[in-house]
């Protein structure tokens, strides 16, 4: 921690110079085109974003939700900053239909860019409104007022608190309606130099409660009269329920209801362990038809490359003046299906009462989930309330929404009683949507001077986004299985080419994506969508090209990169990691570099990984990862560093260990033993250095380090062995083979 703090201060100094040199966009250019800044149009009135309470504290409403990324603390910092309030006086209400703005999903590392920007402008405008009101009441010009600590002061020593303004004007005895006015986005937020809360490592608001056993998660909810539900899924995708002895399950101790709707099966019991036992019995007495055959796991990449696919050229440019190619390289990279594998299985609590449904869920989008639930259950969306309550760490479209529908279907059988459904580990492992398997085929030509002349990247993948409500479709797991099903939605596009286009300057470039529509295993958004695999491939290939050109990997990247912010990140990573050009491996130890700007428009990250490979066993130990991140204006340095570090450790796990296993009929990785992840003994030491650019806008960071970390590790392993493994994960048997 102290090392990180020190580093950050150093960078604060060094970055000041960089900002002067490179700052291209002035502050306050947050609006997309002519629209309102960020998501400000999600609530038309200022009152939709905040409310001043009679005690002077401020309640802030956000459509963005806490996924374990610390977003609510960062948003509170932004609000406190603009309102000149202490952080403790901000209360946040997040993700509740009918109450918070509809900001869609909390996805794509866009919460600060969109939600944070909106909140910043709303709070800046609210403060201006309060100042106007105070000026009128105190009969002084606004210019002679200042704010601090929730109070407005005049130069002659008079003051008025926000609470007094909120209580209304005593002259006309009415509470103020000051914030009932359109949010215009026309009041400039504070300039960077005057910020005192944004840019500091404010402690997370939720941590003390979580460390001491306070109720913090939807799993911790206990409502009066609450009962427990569990579901029984088919043995594999496409299997249909042929017969089930429901009476036998009804007779079990504590069982209150057994629900069968088409191929959907669930049970509700008084006690949780009774529901779990009943689930086991129910699974045992259900007879299923055969599953739809799955592709052969060992030939999944061949399968992806040969199925009908939507082909699109996502980037293409050519320069007739480009130098001739003197050397050509080609390589194919693969990445398996990956699981989110949240530590806490998906959970929801649903209650049906007088035709109205109330669902508490760790969904990433309360409004889209509400609309999908209403559609499946044939309810008016206005009769459905979805309230976000935290779940275990969320890294994309996991089982949260599906568990919400499960709970709603079971709650329908027991009106008036809240039903809590928590998935069992095998439900989560086998039925959450996975990150798609992918194939990346790259080809590039070098000129006589060793520079890249042309580049081709083709990617084959299933869809990376099939969230509920996308394109107006339901896409909830249980809805596939109902007697009147809403069938699986085959997404048209979404993320398979994310970060496939290099940020590097290359004269001739073609990037092609093949979206395979047939989806044997359900896939959707997992942290970075396709970017993890594309960056792994692209940055691995950069190392291969550097080697072919006889260049140092860092120099080679810099030679092809004009973007000054990207260059600063790469150069800083080289310095901080002690990168030595031309360093030879001793055959077991290696170091590797990886770089990307997430989505080519969000946070920049460069990683340097140091590994040790045991040539006889093929086992890799990632000793250390040094990362440099630049996310524009940093709101909470510690929070940002945690997101970068967390992404690196998770990517190390994906890269070294993880692959969803399946046979011809079902997913076979169904617990932590069959889906192992990186654990304490093997977790690398991670050093994160931040470049802060306080004059720049926020850049989403939550997904920024995954790709660069994977590439850095793969390049380090390649450096150590002198041979490269292009197939993820980098399992010992593969590396033993590569080591020869």
């Amino acid at each position, binding site marked *: *921690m102290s090392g990180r703090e020190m580093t950050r201060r150093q960078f604060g100094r060094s970055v000041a110079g960089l900002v002067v040199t490179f700052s291209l966009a002035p502050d306050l250019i947050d609006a997309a085109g002519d629209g309102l800044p960020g998501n400000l149009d999600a609530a038309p009135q200022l009152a939709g974003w905040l409310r001043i309470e009679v005690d002077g504290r401020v309640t802030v409403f956000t459509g963005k939700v806490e996924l374990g990324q610390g977003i609510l603390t960062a948003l509170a910092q932004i609000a406190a900053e603009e309102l000149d309030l202490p952080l403790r006086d901000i209360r946040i209400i997040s993700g509740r239909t009918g109450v918070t703005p509809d900001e869609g999903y909390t996805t794509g590392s866009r919460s600060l860019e969109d939600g944070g920007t909106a909140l910043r402008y709303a709070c800046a405008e609210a403060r201006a409104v309060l100042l106007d009101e105070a000026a009128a009441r105190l009969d002084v010009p606004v210019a002679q007022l200042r704010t601090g600590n929730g109070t407005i002061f005049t130069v002659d020593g008079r003051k008025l608190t926000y609470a007094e303004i909120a209580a209304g004007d005593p002259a006309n005895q009415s509470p103020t309606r000051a914030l009932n006015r359109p949010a215009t986005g026309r009041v400039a937020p504070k300039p960077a130099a005057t910020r005192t809360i944004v840019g500091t490592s404010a402690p997370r608001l939720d941590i003390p409660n979580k460390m001491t056993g306070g109720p*913090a998660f939807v799993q911790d909810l206990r409502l009066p009269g609450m009962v427990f539900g569990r579901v029984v899924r088919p043995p594999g995708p496409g299997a249909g329920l042929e017969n089930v002895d429901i009476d036998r399950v009804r007779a079990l101790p504590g069982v209150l209801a057994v629900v069968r709707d088409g191929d959907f099966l669930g049970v509700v019991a008084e006690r949780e362990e009774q529901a779990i036992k009943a689930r086991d019995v129910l699974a045992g007495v259900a007879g299923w038809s055969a599953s739809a055959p799955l592709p052969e796991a060992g030939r999944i990449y061949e399968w992806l490359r040969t199925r009908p696919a939507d082909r699109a050229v996502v980037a293409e440019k050519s320069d007739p003046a480009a130098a001739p190619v003197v050397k050509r390289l080609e390589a194919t990279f693969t990445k398996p299906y990956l699981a989110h594998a949240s*530590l806490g299985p998906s959970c929801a609590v649903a209650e049906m009462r007088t035709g109205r449904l109330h669902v508490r869920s760790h969904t990433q989008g309360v409004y889209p989930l509400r609309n999908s639930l209403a559609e499946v259950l044939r309810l008016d969306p206005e009769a459905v309330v979805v309230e976000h309550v935290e*779940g275990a760490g969320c890294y994309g479209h996991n089982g949260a929404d599906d568990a919400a529908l499960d709970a709603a279907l079971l709650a329908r059988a027991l009106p008036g009683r809240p039903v809590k459904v928590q998935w069992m580990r095998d439900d989560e492992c086998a039925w959450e949507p996975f990150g798609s398997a992918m194939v990346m085929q790259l080809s590039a030509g070098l000129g006589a001077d060793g520079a890249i002349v042309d580049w081709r990247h083709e990617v084959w993948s299933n869809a990376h986004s099939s969230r509920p409500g996308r394109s107006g479709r339901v896409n909830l797991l249980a809805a596939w299985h109902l007697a009147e099903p809403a069938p699986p939605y085959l997404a048209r596009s979404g993320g398979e080419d994310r970060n496939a286009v290099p940020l590097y300057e290359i004269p001739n470039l073609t990037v092609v994506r093949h979206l395979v529509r047939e989806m044997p295993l359900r896939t959707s958004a997992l942290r970075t969508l396709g970017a993890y695999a594309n960056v792994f491939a692209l940055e691995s290939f950069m190392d291969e090209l550097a080697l072919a050109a006889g260049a140092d990997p860092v120099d080679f990247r810099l030679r092809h990169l004009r973007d000054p912010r990207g260059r600063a990140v790469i150069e800083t990573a080289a310095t901080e990691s002690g990168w030595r050009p031309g360093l030879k491996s001793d055959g077991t130890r290696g170091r590797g570099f990886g770089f990307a700007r997430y989505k080519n428009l969000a946070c920049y990250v460069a990683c340097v990984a140091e590994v040790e490979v045991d040539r006889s066993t093929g086992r890799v130990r990632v000793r250390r990862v040094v990362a440099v991140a630049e996310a524009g204006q940093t709101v909470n340095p510690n929070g940002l560093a945690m997101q970068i570090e967390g992404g690196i450790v998770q990517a190390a796990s994906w890269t070294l260990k993880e692959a969803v296993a399946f046979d011809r009929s079902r997913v076979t990785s169904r617990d932590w033993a069959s889906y192992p992840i990186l*654990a304490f003994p093997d977790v690398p030491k991670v050093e994160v250095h931040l470049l802060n650019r306080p004059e720049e806008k926020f850049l989403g960071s939550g997904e920024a380090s995954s790709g660069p970390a994977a590439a850095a590790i793969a390049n380090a392993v390649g450096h150590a062995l002198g041979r490269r493994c292009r197939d993820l994960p980098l399992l010992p048997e593969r590396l033993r083979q590569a080591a020869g």
Partner: protein
Amino acid sequence: MIALEVNGGRHDLEVDPETPLLYVLRNDLGLNGAKFGCGLGECGACTVLVDGEPVLSCVTPAGLVAGRRIVTLEGLGTAEKPHPLQLAFIEEQAAQCGYCAGGMIMRSKALLDQTPAPGEQEIREALAGNLCRCGTHGAILRAVSRAAAVGRAVAEGRMAGVAAGEVKP
């Protein structure tokens, strides 16, 4: 009927002795610290102490630990008066989602009770069975080291005791 001693209090409960301890703690006693992660004893999120030893409550029948001293995360301290380990986790901000934290803290408590000055490798080995999916391992390692340092300072009289909420052994 079984009698459980949890966080220093006795509870007579009408539950099947085969019921995994986890559900009794969470649903009968309203405790949140131990979490359901897998129900298979594979992830450590449900870790509690029984007679000072770390136990996976999701695979431990409640009847088996009747009459023994059970301590959960709640038995260490409160948000107002946290145990040194809890305080260290708070100060190191050792959580992203925090779902695994209760199990991490309990396992670390067992470690520090046995080994007051563990090296980083020892902490890593002790926590090998506790999974974290957010990648918070670095902060957790720092938190446990910090708590150990504070504990040693208190033991050696270099620092006032801060273990206000701690359950007496």
